[in-house]
């Protein structure tokens, strides 16, 4: 079927291995793939599935161990220079020089791509207008927001009007508004210049906008089809379920892992269930087995449904072990406010990162801080953990004023930072030992906690592996285990799911739900808007300000309109941000 004349990218039985100190990793195994010109193709799959490796191979940055790769008929091994003249490649961190200004970055990439001076002016204007960066040409790239960096990175790759665009996770850590803009730029380029685009993404709603989707897992292609065909495989298997007496979270917790149910996630006011058979299996609801309380309606399948279904076949759920946490001061008064933030400001020089923040969190709640990179979430977190003093206002955690006794409060909180602060060259067990002794655990008690962590977080198989070599999902689990060694009452999770694939994200939220159910208060930041649904209450932060606070449904109701009767959290976010800017 493939015709050399209109094939942009061709992989023929390509394999690639990487050797680390301890093991050989098969990044890609015997991959054959061909991309027709003018196609937009999304590469999806769990971490370490081989998406980045494939893009780097396509860009000629790596050479295949076996097989061959052609870009517009040129071999990546022999004719890399012809390929580089025709492609635009954006690596994960956008490849920008942060100490150069927007205009200087554009000039550099124009020089590198031999864009003539005459053509340059025209291209700059066009791209600046398209990306909305015109007012910022003199600003250093390092001082741009995540969304602006992403658009600048894209602009740099588009300067030479490439025929093939390779984008590695272009939207990680970028707010929804910027993501929409990015997509409109890409779609415009494809239409206007007949460009071919191959991109990797962790957002399945993005993949849904592509013509073709390739699902990777462990270096193999699991499936390759159009998003519609993917979704259609699950037609009739998808239901929205609600229970009149149970909260969505309890219902979801209960449903996931039941026989016949592939997946259960909270979606708005319902729990979205994918069943392995076309009919929904009989749901047995705890002791009070009253079928009338359950309402289920069939719903349209999404790409994510079949994605999960396909991956589950290869990675059967080992039902997350029930987490048992004994909360030390396990008071029953659920209304107790364990965190109070009152009029808190934080300045960095003359930049105000956080503005007059005000919120409270009750015991056992999952409280979310949502917002794009640079919205002030991490700063807020660091102040709450006593790692950073507030410039103004008062903060108290478990009744302790952080300005007076930060150390005392810290003994009762667990903190998992954005980059999973583990010792990369220590093994899993060494990390656990270190963190537990850092929290003052000794002898038998320490032994007990370590075996608890190994079991609860399914780390037993990797006890002696070096932490730095573990896949991201494992690192995340290990980091969470380390933060829980001293049985804290409050757990702070800073971007725990950033860059983590949907499967690992589900597991993570299951655990977090169980923790909350056993009385641990959880504060979590995320830029995945759909994860807001897992929170009891949340605030959306924009440029250091709280844009809105409330329960997920309250927030969504705010923006519901006749045109958009059932908005998603992402719709709500975009609408609220835009209305604020007006």
């Amino acid at each position, binding site marked *: 079927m493939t015709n050399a004349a209109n094939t942009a990218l061709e992989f023929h039985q390509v394999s690639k291995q990487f050797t680390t100190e301890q093991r050989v990793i098969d990044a890609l195994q015997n991959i054959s793939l061909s991309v027709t010109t003018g196609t937009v193709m999304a590469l999806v799959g769990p971490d370490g599935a081989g998406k980045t490796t494939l893009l780097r191979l396509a860009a000629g940055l790596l050479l295949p161990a076996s097989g061959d790769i052609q870009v517009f008929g040129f071999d990546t091994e022999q004719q890399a220079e012809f390929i580089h003249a025709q492609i635009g490649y954006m690596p994960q961190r956008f490849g*920008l020089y942060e*100490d150069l200004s927007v205009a200087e970055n554009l000039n550099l990439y124009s020089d*590198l*791509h031999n864009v003539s001076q005459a053509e340059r002016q025209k291209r700059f204007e066009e791209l600046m207008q398209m990306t909305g960066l015109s007012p910022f040409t003199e600003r250093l790239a390092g001082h741009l927001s995540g969304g602006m960096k992403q658009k600048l990175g894209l602009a740099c790759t588009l300067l030479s009007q490439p025929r093939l665009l390779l984008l590695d996770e272009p939207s990680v850590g970028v707010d929804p508004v910027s993501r929409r803009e990015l997509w409109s730029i890409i779609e415009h380029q494809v239409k206007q210049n007949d460009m071919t685009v191959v991109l990797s993404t962790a957002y399945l709603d993005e993949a849904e906008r592509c013509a073709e989707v390739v699902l990777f897992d462990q270096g193999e292609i699991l499936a390759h089809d159009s998003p519609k065909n993917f979704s259609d495989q699950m037609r009739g298997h998808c239901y929205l379920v609600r229970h009149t007496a149970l909260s969505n979270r309890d219902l979801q917790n209960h449903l996931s892992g039941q026989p016949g149910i592939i997946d259960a996630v909270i979606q708005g006011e319902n729990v979205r269930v994918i069943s392995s058979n076309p009919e929904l299996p009989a749901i047995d609801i705890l002791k009070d087995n009253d079928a009338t309380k359950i309402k289920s309606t069939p719903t349209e399948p999404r790409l994510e449904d079949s994605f999960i279904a396909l991956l589950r076949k290869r990675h059967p759920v080992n039902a997350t072990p029930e987490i048992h946490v004994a909360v030390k001061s396990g008071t029953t008064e659920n209304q107790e406010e364990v965190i109070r933030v009152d009029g808190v400001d934080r300045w960095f020089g003359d930049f105000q990162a956080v503005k007059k923040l005000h919120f409270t969190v009750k015991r056992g709640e999952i409280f979310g801080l949502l917002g794009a990179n640079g919205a002030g979430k991490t700063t807020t977190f660091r102040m709450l953990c006593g790692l950073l003093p507030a410039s103004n206002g008062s903060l108290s955690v478990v009744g302790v004023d952080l300005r007076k006794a930060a150390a005392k409060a810290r003994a009762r909180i667990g903190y998992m930072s954005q980059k999973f602060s583990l010792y990369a060259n220590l093994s899993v067990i060494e990390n656990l030992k270190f963190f537990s002794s850092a929290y003052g655990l000794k002898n038998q008690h320490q032994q007990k906690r370590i075996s608890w962590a190994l079991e609860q977080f399914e780390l037993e198989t990797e006890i002696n592996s070096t932490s730095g070599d573990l896949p991201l999902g494992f690192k995340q689990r290990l980091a969470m285990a380390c933060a829980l060694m001293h049985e804290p009452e409050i757990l702070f999770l800073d971007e725990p799911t950033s860059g983590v694939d949907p499967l690992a994200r589900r597991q993570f939220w299951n655990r977090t739900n169980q923790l909350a159910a056993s009385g641990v208060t959880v504060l979590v930041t995320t830029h995945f808007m759909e994860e807001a649904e897992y929170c009891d209450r949340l605030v959306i932060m924009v440029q250091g300000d709280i844009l809105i606070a409330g329960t997920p449904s309250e927030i969504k109701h705010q923006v519901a309109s006749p045109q958009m009767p059932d908005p998603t959290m992402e719709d709500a976010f975009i609408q609220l941000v835009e209305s604020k800017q007006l």
Partner: protein
Amino acid sequence: MNINRMRLKGLIIKEFLQIWRDPSSLAIAFVLPVLLLLLFGYGVSLDAKHVPIGWVIDKNTPETQSFSAAFEHSEYFQPHHYNSMTAAQTAMQHRKINAIIRLREDFSRELFKQNSPAIQVIVDGVDANTARLISGYTQGAWSEWLAHLAMVRGISLSKPIEIEHRIWYNSAILSKNFLVPGLIAIIMILIGALLTAMVMAREWERGTLEAMIATPITMIEVLLGKLIPYFVLGMGGMLLSIAMAVFMFDVPLRGSIWVLILCGTLFLLVALGMGLLISIISKNQFVAGQIAIIVTFLPAFILSGFIFDIDSMPIVVQGFTFLVSARYFVAILQTVFLTGNVWAVIVPNAAALLLLVIFFFRMALKKAPQRLE
């Protein structure tokens, strides 16, 4: 090997902008050289000057006065007077003085008698270097004074031979004249090897090189794009150092500045070649910095003859110094500054530098990555 002028120009402009905006590059390129020059020019001195010396004179006579006056007027010593030996000893224990000179009661009487030690000198040997200096100076001062006295009194001295010192080339025996030129090599290696290795590793770390390799750029352009800006910076550092040496520290420049610049170019190319090679081997700033300090900066400091004389090193270490590129340049620097254009020194050392340039550039080109691995 095609080099595109537009791409190369773009890379060079980028590099200069980065140097200009990065305080740490600027510090290594401009602040550190000035600091080092000030430190070695003013602070570190291998000469003994104003060394505190304790005097214990048991009985004042015209002779003791004349002898101690010979020390008083010298800029090398700073006399302190004590009444008794015990007081002087305590002062030495407290490190207030570095030596004691005792003139006994019978100093004047025993002066010209043979085998009679009329003068006792006790030197604090903790700092061996200073101790040697003091003992040398005192001996010199003593025999000079004695000779002078003998001449005045018309007595022939029992010592048959008089040693006459004459110091050539650095006639004032100022150690700064010898340190400051050598320092130029150190400064150039800092800029050429350390700075270059770090900025290249930074590109790996930040993922910018990944984006760059995917453009039509060639590796030789990447290497030249680093080489040219840091060459300019290194030559700037050298000219600054030469200017400071000549105008600020009054170090004589007896040879030709063009010989210096030509040899400096060779040496800088060696340093840049090493820097690029280090950054190709290690893709992390911390490791690149460590390697650069250990294999380029420290040997240049210790094994180049900059401070420590190579001929007095153990033979094994001497053999090792042939691998240290700085030794060739330090030899050239010291010769051209203090002696002049001595071709017998300049030519072989410059030839060694040329060989090293060829070696390191061939290695860098051979090892240069065309891809990410």
